[in-house]
Each structure stands twice: as structure tokens, then as C-alpha cells.
């Protein structure tokens, strides 16, 4: 039964149109999962294009892929996976009412995310120096430079879109950190931390697909 139109003073985190915190939590979580499904479809278009052209041009894609820095890519992969660990620990800390730990793990996640972006920046810089950025004086030594252009277009589009999502993720983490600092979260209600965690894990998983597809093409050659 619901009669009043404002949030109950005893339950400030309950929005008025929900009956109870459980329903609100269920809605927020389902909402984030549906959003992640849309993100899968969003990235999917680029993945589809990449798969097509990789099947058509295995030689050139292999050659172009080998110019990427596999060490930096691998380091970044470890950095991002670790950031997912710290994020999961942050969610756990929220669930156990440990405000300081929550803030520490959120900050750690952000630092690792920033490290990832920094390394990505270094890689992009390398590509710029080697004239491997399409549209900016592109040159490639090999039999089919235009197809290498295609590889790098997809490389920058896919990693760029991923990086954009990471930047947004860092923004979200900042908001979460501020809210945590203000003591907004409790074991009873910490839904924003949970759904931010879902988002961050999704961004991580996208990279888990991107790394082998882009960096590990024909590396045994």
C-alpha cells in the first residue's frame, strides 16, 4: 500500500514509485543488464566487420597485427583484469559496511583504469610515429597497404570505442567515490556500486575479446 508521495524519511534511498528496496534493487540490476545487452550489440557491429575482413585478408591483418606492441597489450590486459578484481572487492566492501575499504578499492580501480588509458595513449603515440593512423599520413610497408589501413581503422575504432567506455566508467567511479565518501552507501543499500561494478566488468570483458582478436593474430609466425 502506498499513500504518500515523498520518500519515506526512514528509507531515504527508496524512490517513491517503488514499493520497497527489494523491488528497486531488482529494477536497477535488470536495467543495467539490459543496458549491457545493448552495449554488446553496439560493439557487435564493429566485431562483425572485423571478423569479415580478417577472414578475407588474413595475411595483411596478421602483418598489421604484428606491429602492435604485444607486451603493452598484455600488461594492459593484466591491469584491467586486476581492476575488475578491485571493483569486485569494492562491491564486497560496500555489502559489509566497510566504508574506508570501499573508497580504497574504488580508488584503486580508478588508478588501474587510468594506467590502462595511459598505456593505451603510449600505444596510440607509437602508431602515430609509425604513420599507422588512417587519415593522418598513413603508410604501411607491405603488399597491400590499403588493407592494412582497414585493419588500423578497425583497431582504432574498436579500441577507441572501448577507451571511451572506460573514460565514462572513470566518471562513474568518481561519482561513486564521492557518494561513498559522503556515507551514502550501507550494507542495506549500495545498489549504485553494484551496477557500476556490472558496467566495469563488461568493459573488462570487451577488452578480453579485443586483445586476442587485435593483438594475437598469427603471432606464431
Amino acid at each position, binding site marked *: 500500500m502506498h499513500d504518500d508521495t515523498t520518500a519515506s524519511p526512514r528509507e531515504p534511498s527508496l524512490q*517513491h514509485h517503488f514499493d520497497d528496496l527489494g523491488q528497486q534493487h531488482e*529494477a536497477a540490476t*535488470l536495467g543495467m543488464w539490459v543496458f549491457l545487452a545493448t552495449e554488446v550489440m553496439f560493439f*557487435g557491429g564493429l566485431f562483425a566487420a572485423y571478423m569479415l575482413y580478417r577472414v578475407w585478408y588474413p595475411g595483411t591483418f596478421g602483418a598489421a597485427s604484428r606491429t602492435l606492441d604485444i607486451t603493452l597489450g598484455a600488461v594492459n590486459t593484466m591491469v584491467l583484469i586486476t581492476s575488475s578484481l578491485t571493483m569486485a572487492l569494492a562491491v564486497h566492501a560496500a555489502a559489509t559496511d566497510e566504508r574506508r575499504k570501499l573508497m580504497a578499492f574504488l580508488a584503486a580501480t580508478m588508478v588501474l583504469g587510468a594506467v590502462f588509458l595511459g598505456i593505451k595513449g603510449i600505444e596510440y603515440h607509437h602508431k602515430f610515429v609509425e604513420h599507422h593512423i*588512417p*587519415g593522418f599520413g598513413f603508410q604501411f610497408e607491405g603488399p597491400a597497404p590499403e588493407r592494412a589501413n*582497414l585493419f588500423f581503422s578497425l583497431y582504432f575504432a574498436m579500441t577507441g570505442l572501448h577507451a571511451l567506455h572506460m573514460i565514462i566508467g572513470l566518471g562513474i567511479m568518481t561519482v561513486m567515490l564521492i557518494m561513498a565518501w559522503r556515507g551514502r552507501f550501507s550494507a542495506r543499500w549500495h545498489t549504485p556500486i553494484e551496477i557500476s561494478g556490472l558496467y566495469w566488468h563488461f568493459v573488462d570483458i570487451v577488452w578480453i575479446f579485443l586483445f586476442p582478436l587485435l593483438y594475437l593474430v598469427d603471432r606464431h609466425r
Partner: protein
Amino acid sequence: MDTLAFPRTHYLNAEYGLKSWLLTTDHKRIGLLFLGAISLFFILGGIFAGLIRLELLTPPGDLVSDDTYNKLFTMHGIVMVFMFLIPSIPAVMGNFFVPIMIGARDLAFPRLNLLSWYIFMTGGLFTLYAIVTGGVDTGWTFYTPFSTLSSHSNVMTAAIGIFIIGFSSILTGLNFIVTIHTMRAPGMTWFRMPLFLWAMYATSLINVLATPVLAITLAAVALERAFHMGIFDPAYGGDPVLFQHLFWFYSHPAVYIMILPAMGVVSEVIATFSRKSIFGYKFVAFSSLAIAVFGFLVWGHHMFVAGMSVYGAMIFSVLSFLVAVPSAVKVFNWTATLYKGSISYQTPMLYALGFIGLFTIGGLTGLFLASLGVDVHVTDTYFVVAHFHYIMVGGAIMGYLGGIHYWWPKITGRMYPDMWGRVAAVVTFVGFNLTFFPQFVLGYMGMPRRYHAYPPEFQALNVLSTAGASVMGIGYIIPVIYLLWSLKYGAIAGNNPWGAKGLEWEIPSPPPTFNFDKTPVVTEPAYAYETREK
């Protein structure tokens, strides 16, 4: 239970002022914000249609140049598809009634709902900017390599505008899915929901899964134009047909985004004006889901002449035949509902009946197009144009107008004069058929689409079509007049002017801001009309 009164406080007068509208989180007000926006866009799209039909009155291309004509049909398509049809029923009637029909106080994410409107307006203004600063000439389908390499029109701006608009659809769909899953009132089980909600749910599934693909495809077109990515350019090893696959992977499900909500409206209207439960409720409910699922599997039927293998074409052809089956299931079930129903022919019912007839014709001609041999003859002719206008205008717009007329009393608390409503419905129906039936013949006789000139032997049918368009235009203008008139002078509607079943008819007209004083408890199935003893 019909209180024939105008409530003292309701969602329209609970708060006053521009800020109370622009910062509202009330799903009903947001529905009206969308109504205003899409109505303006509909007028714009209609103006482009009028210019097209005006040009086609005479065989030579004498009204506008060929480049301008390309822009006219492109912008007609873009405005009508992305800025009118896709949002129409979901953003107006879905927003207004999804919470009420499940017994909730609002959607799951009210602020996201408002954001959805702002995103829509931003994208709409972007696209309008593209239109007024020179237009786009690629067709609403943006085929490459013309759109990426050769077109000198505002492709980038339009692509960005539509990209932005897409997020509006995604957020609305997300909101509906979560709302329907988590906020149904006690006793409102899935199979007690009105069929309009099943239609909204299925539409929302398509919205959230298909629209992102359009978004990334348009982004790729923009990147191609800006940085020469090469993804669709043969000179770089790219394939222009890849664009078609990616585009139609969204745009075919998109047509189901446009028709499913109208089918939902028809279910509601047919039940109310036959005073009978929809025959085969579960079949109709599952058919909505089936359309959503199958709709994702048939995109290749837009590409039969693009060079695909015969085997691929055959598979898409068979699947396209299959996707017609759930639609047919609905038509048969509506017909069975009418049988021995207590039928009254008020305005909403006329639109619903019109829908059934015109959608059937449009749908059946879709099967013509799904047949490979026939398709080779009629593809890219006016046959296709007629087919999709039968579905989109004869179907979706009739459904939309039916919904407007059905729920107008609930939204505004006023009745419109039913006689004028019926006149307008008939005028629209006659005008529509006069406009588009000749186009089936024209297409079959070989008149290509997207040409501003044609051989003289096609003129008579083109003149008929343009005349029909004028009649149809009148049919659309009449409701604007009496609906606006009704706001001030219409009879008071009361809670339930149609004597219909459904939670929305148990609350005052217009509803209070939070819909229900007490959360309803649902104990009966949908459309629980009393059956008469024989």
C-alpha cells in the same frame, strides 16, 4: 463505477509552469512532450511527401531538380521513420499507459524517461539542422559507397542526428522492459496483462537489441566520411554491401518496432468495441514475441538483388514467409474476436478495422516481395513503396490514430465529437487507398522508385495517387481541429466512457499524478467482459 466527473487535481494541473513540464519525471507528461514533438515532425515529413507527390503529377521532372528530389524523398523517409513512426506509439501511448496498465505509479526509471525525451529533441534538432542547411540525398537507407564517398550533402550531420535519436529509443525500450518485469501490481501476472503490454514488451526487446547496431553503422559511415576508414570502400578492401547487411540488420527489426505497437492498440480497441475478450489471448501474446524474434532473421530480403548467393536468398525468403505467420495469427484472432461480438463503430474501432484490412494487404504484398522471382521484377519499383506504405501508413498510422482516439478521453478528460472522428477516419481510409493502391500497379508496370521523372504512360495513376494524397491530408487535418476543440469544449469523459475493461479505465480522466490512490490488486484476466448466455 463510472464517475462522470472532472477531477479537481490531476497530472495536468498538479503543477504549473514551463519548468514543471521541462523537468517533469511524470511518465504521463513525458508522453505528452513526445506527442507534441512527433506531431511537429509528422507535419514536416508530410510536407516533404506533398512536394514529392506534387512533382510526380507530371511525367517530366519539372518541379524540382533531380538532386532536390533525391533530398525530398530522403528527408521524407528520415523524418517519418526516425522522428515519427519509431517513437510514435511507444513514446506517447507506451509512456502514458505502460505504468497505469500494470498498476504502477510510474516507469522504473522516471529520470531516464525524461532524458530519453531530451535525447530525442537533441537528435531531432541535429537532423533538422542537416535538413535546413542543404539536406541529405542518399535515401533514408544511406547506401554506401554513395553516402560515404560521393554524396556532397549533409550525410555526417544527419547520421549523427539519427545516432543520437537512437539512444532515445534504447532508453525507452530499457525502461519498459524493466518496468514490465519488476513493477506489476499484485495479481497482475504476465498472462493477465493487456495485450498492448505484450506488444510494448516485444517492441522494447527489438528496440534495445537492434538500435545499437544502427548506431554503430551510422557511426561507421560518419568515420568513413571523416577519416576514410575504408570499411565500406573497395579501394581499401572494404565492401559496400557490408553496410547493407549492418543497416538492414537493424532496419528490418525496425519495421516491427513500427508495427507491433499498432497491433497492440488494435487488440485493445477490438476487445473494447466488441465487448469481448480477445480470442486466443496467449496466441496473440506469443505472436508478438515471435515477430520480434523472427524479425531479426530476415534482413537479407532487402538485398536479394545485391549479389547474394541463391542459397542465401532462398533461406531469407523462407524465413520471410515464416515471419508473416505470427502476424496472420493476430489478424485471425482479431477476426474471431469480432465474430459474435457486440460491435460498435465508434472512431477508434473504425481505425482498428481499417488497420486490419490495410495491414493484411500490406502484409500479403510483403510475401510477393519475399518470393525471389517476383522480387527481381518489382524490387526498387513503386510496388515496394506501396507495400511499405500500406503497412506503415495503412497499418501503423491507423493504429496510432486509433490509439489517440481511444485514449484521448483518458489523457484529457474530454470527449471529441465522434461523428467528426468517424468522418475523418473514413476520409483518411479512402484517401489512403487512392494514394497507394495505384502505386502497386505502377510498380508492377515498371515505374522505378526514387525517380523524379517517369514515362508518360504512368501519368494517370500518378495523378490518382497525388489526388489521394490530398484527400488523405484532409483526413489528417480534421482530427487536429476537433481534438484541439475538445480540450475546451468537449464533453466530460468520466472514468470510463467506453465501458472498457482495464486498469486505465478505473482511474479518473485525466489521471492523478501518481495514477492510483492505492496499489490495485488484480483478480481477473484481461478483457473480462461478461459473456452473454445464448
